[in-house]
C-alpha cells in the first residue's frame, strides 16, 4: 500500500446502450468489471488482452476521461473522488499519458519546443528561460537534439514523434506514465529503439509505467508485473515470470501459445491452442466465468459460479479459473 503509486480498487465501468427516438437505455456494455491492481513506485504493470477486453477503458477511467461506475482510484494513496477541481489538477501532474498514434496525438501547427513546453506553461512552472532549459533537457533525455526545437511534427518520423510524445509526458516529472500501445504503430526496427528508451527512462527517472498493449513479446520485455484481461475481467495477475512462464488460466495459455515465434526451427514444436468462436458480446456476457464459452475445460460449475481471482497453484500468479493448473506445454520450454 505504501509503495503504490496507483491503486485501482474494484473498478467498474458500464456504458449505457441507448436506442430509439427517445434514446431510452436498452442495455449496458459491461466494459470493466471489478478490476483491482496496484502499480508500485518505479515499476511497470502491464494490462494485456485483446480488443474489447477493457484495458483501454481502465486507463481512461484512471485519467477520469470518464467517470467510473463504481470503485476507487488512488494516486499515491489519495482518492481522486471527492477532491476539488484544483486538487485534481495538482494530482494529475503526477500521471501523464502516452498514446498509440504519434501522428494523431501531437498538435500539427505547433513547433516541437512549444509542444513540450505546454504542460509547463499550463501548470505555471518556472519562467520562460527555465522552461526553455527544461525543454532542451527533455529532448536530450529522449535522444533528440536541441536542433529539433523549431521543427513541426510532420517533419518527424513515427519513432521520433513518439519520442516527442514521451518528452512531453515527462515534462512535469510524473510518478506514473500511462502508455497505451506506445510502440504498436512503429516499424519493427524503430520499435526496439523506443522499447529501449522506455526501459532506460524508467531506470534513470524511476517513473512507474502502466503499460497497455496487445503485444505480448514487448510486454514480456518491459514489465515487472502483468494483468491479463478478458471481457472486462482480470483473469490472471502476477509477476512477469509467473504469468509468462507458469500461466494457469486457460485464456492466458491460449494467448501465449498464439504468439508466432520468429524462429522457423521451432515451427510446429510449440503446442498452439486455437480458440474457437468469437469474443462474446460485452452487453450480454456469459454467466459465471466470462471465458467458459470458449474454454475447453468448462464444466457446469463454470456456468453458475464466477471463479475468484486468487492464487491457486504454488509459484504461479492469481488465476480466475476453477480448474487452474500449469500448462503442459509452457512457452519457455519451447526454447
Amino acid at each position, binding site marked *: 500500500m505504501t509503495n503504490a503509486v496507483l491503486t485501482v480498487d474494484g473498478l467498474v465501468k458500464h456504458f449505457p446502450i441507448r436506442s430509439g427516438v427517445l434514446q431510452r437505455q436498452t442495455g449496458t456494455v459491461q466494459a470493466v468489471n471489478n478490476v483491482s491492481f496496484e502499480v508500485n513506485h518505479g515499476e511497470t504493470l502491464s494490462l494485456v488482452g*485483446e480488443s474489447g477486453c477493457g484495458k483501454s477503458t481502465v486507463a481512461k477511467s484512471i485519467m477520469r476521461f470518464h467517470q467510473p461506475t463504481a470503485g476507487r482510484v488512488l494516486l499515491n494513496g489519495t482518492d481522486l473522488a471527492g477532491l476539488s477541481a484544483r486538487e485534481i489538477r495538482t494530482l494529475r501532474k503526477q500521471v501523464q499519458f502516452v498514446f498509440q498514434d504519434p501522428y494523431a496525438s501531437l498538435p500539427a501547427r505547433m513547433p516541437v519546443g512549444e509542444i513540450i513546453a505546454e504542460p509547463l506553461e499550463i501548470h505555471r512552472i518556472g519562467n520562460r528561460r527555465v522552461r526553455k532549459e527544461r525543454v532542451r533537457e527533455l529532448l536530450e533525455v529522449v535522444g533528440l537534439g536541441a536542433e529539433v526545437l523549431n521543427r513541426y511534427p510532420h517533419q518527424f518520423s513515427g519513432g521520433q514523434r513518439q519520442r516527442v510524445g514521451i518528452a512531453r509526458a515527462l515534462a512535469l516529472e510524473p510518478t506514473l506514465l500511462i502508455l497505451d500501445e506506445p510502440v504498436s504503430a512503429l516499424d*519493427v*526496427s*524503430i520499435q526496439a529503439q523506443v522499447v529501449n528508451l522506455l526501459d532506460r527512462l524508467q531506470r534513470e527517472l524511476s517513473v512507474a509505467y502502466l503499460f497497455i498493449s496487445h503485444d505480448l*513479446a514487448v510486454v*514480456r520485455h518491459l514489465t515487472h508485473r502483468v494483468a491479463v484481461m478478458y471481457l472486462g475481467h482480470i483473469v490472471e495477475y502476477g509477476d512477469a515470470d509467473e504469468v509468462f512462464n507458469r500461466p494457469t488460466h486457460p485464456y492466458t495459455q491460449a494467448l501465449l501459445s498464439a504468439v508466432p515465434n520468429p524462429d522457423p526451427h521451432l515451427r510446429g514444436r510449440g503446442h*498452439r491452442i486455437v480458440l474457437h468462436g468469437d469474443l462474446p458480446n460485452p452487453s450480454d456476457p456469459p454467466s459465471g466465468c466470462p471465458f467458459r464459452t470458449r474454454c475447453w475445460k468448462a464444466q457446469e460449475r463454470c456456468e453458475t459460479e464466477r471463479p475468484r481471482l486468487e492464487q491457486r497453484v504454488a509459484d504461479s500468479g492469481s488465476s480466475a479459473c476453477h480448474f487452474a493448473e500449469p500448462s503442459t506445454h509452457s512457452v519457455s520450454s519451447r526454447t
Partner: protein
Amino acid sequence: MTAAEPLLALRDVVTTFRTDMGRVPAVNGVSYSVLPGETVGVVGESGSGKSVTVTSALGLLPHSGTVESGQAVFAGRDLFTLGERELQRIRGREIGLIFQDPMSALNPVMTIGRQISEGLRRHDRRLSRSAARARVVELLAEVGIPNPAARARQYPHEFSGGMRQRAMIAMAMANRPRLLIADEPTTALDVTVQAQILALIAQVQAETGAALIMITHDLGVIAEIADRVVVMYGGRVVETGPIGSVFGKPGHPYTRGLLTSLPRLDRPAAELYAIPGQPPNPMFLPDGCAFRVRCEQSQNRVECWTQPDLTALTPGHASACHFSHELAASEEVSR
C-alpha cells in the same frame, strides 16, 4: 530444388510514383518468383516497396503510380502487357486477393453472400443464381463461419474483424485460384484471431494446392508459414532464400538486425539490439547500398557506395551485401 516452372515470376520490376516533388522510385528492380503450391513470405518495413511490387503486378496501382519496366509472368503471360479486362479475369479467378482491412475491400451496402456470388458468377457465366447461392453457403462453411446460410444474408458491418477476414478468404478462394496474395492479412487482428486465420489459410492451401505470397512486417508470421522468404529494403530485394537458412544464418546485416531487434517471449533479454536510424524515405534513398547509413557492418567502407547485387551464398540463398561472407564468419564466431 526441382526445376518446376514458376507460377509467377517477377523480373526487374521498376515502379515510380508521381508526387509534387517529382517522380519517386518505389520499386527499384525487384525480381522474385513463386512456384506452384509454394508459400513465399515477403517482409519489409514501411516504404520498402513490398506491397507496391505486387500491386504493380496485379495492375492495381493508384493513378499516380507507373510501372516503368520489368516483367510479371504469370502462368506464361506477362501481366504488364495485358489489358484491364484480361487482368480482371485473372484477378479473382486465377489469383485470389486477401487484404489487411476487409472493411475497405468489401462493399458495405451489399450482403456478404451477394458479394461472393457475384464474384462466382462473374467468372462463370453458366452458374445459375441458386447454384451460386448454394456454393456461397458451402464456402462460408468451409472457412469456419457458423450459421453460413444466415450469415450470407448479413452485411459486412454485422461481422466481427475475424469473421470479416474469413469472409474475404472465402471470396478469394471462391474460384479455386492457383495463387493467393495476402497483404498483411492478420495485422489488424488480435493474436488469438490471427492464429485462427493463419490456420485457416494453411488449411485452404492444403485443400486447393494454391501457392501463397504472404506480405507482412511480422517476422513471426513468416517464420510460421513460409517456405521461402524475400526481405525488402528501400525498394529492393536485399536477401532471399529458404526460411530456415535466411532466419538461421542471415546473409544481410539488415535481416540480421531485424531478427535480433525482436522482443521474444522465450528470451527476455536485458536490452534489445536496435538498428540505428530509420527506414529510408524513398524520395531520398542513399546512393549505393540503401542500408549503408544504418549498417554496422559497412563502417563507411567505400564498397558500400556501389549498389551490391544479389549474390548466392548457398544454393537458393542470396544476399545483396558486399560483406555477406564477413557477416557469415562473424556469425560463426559469436556462436
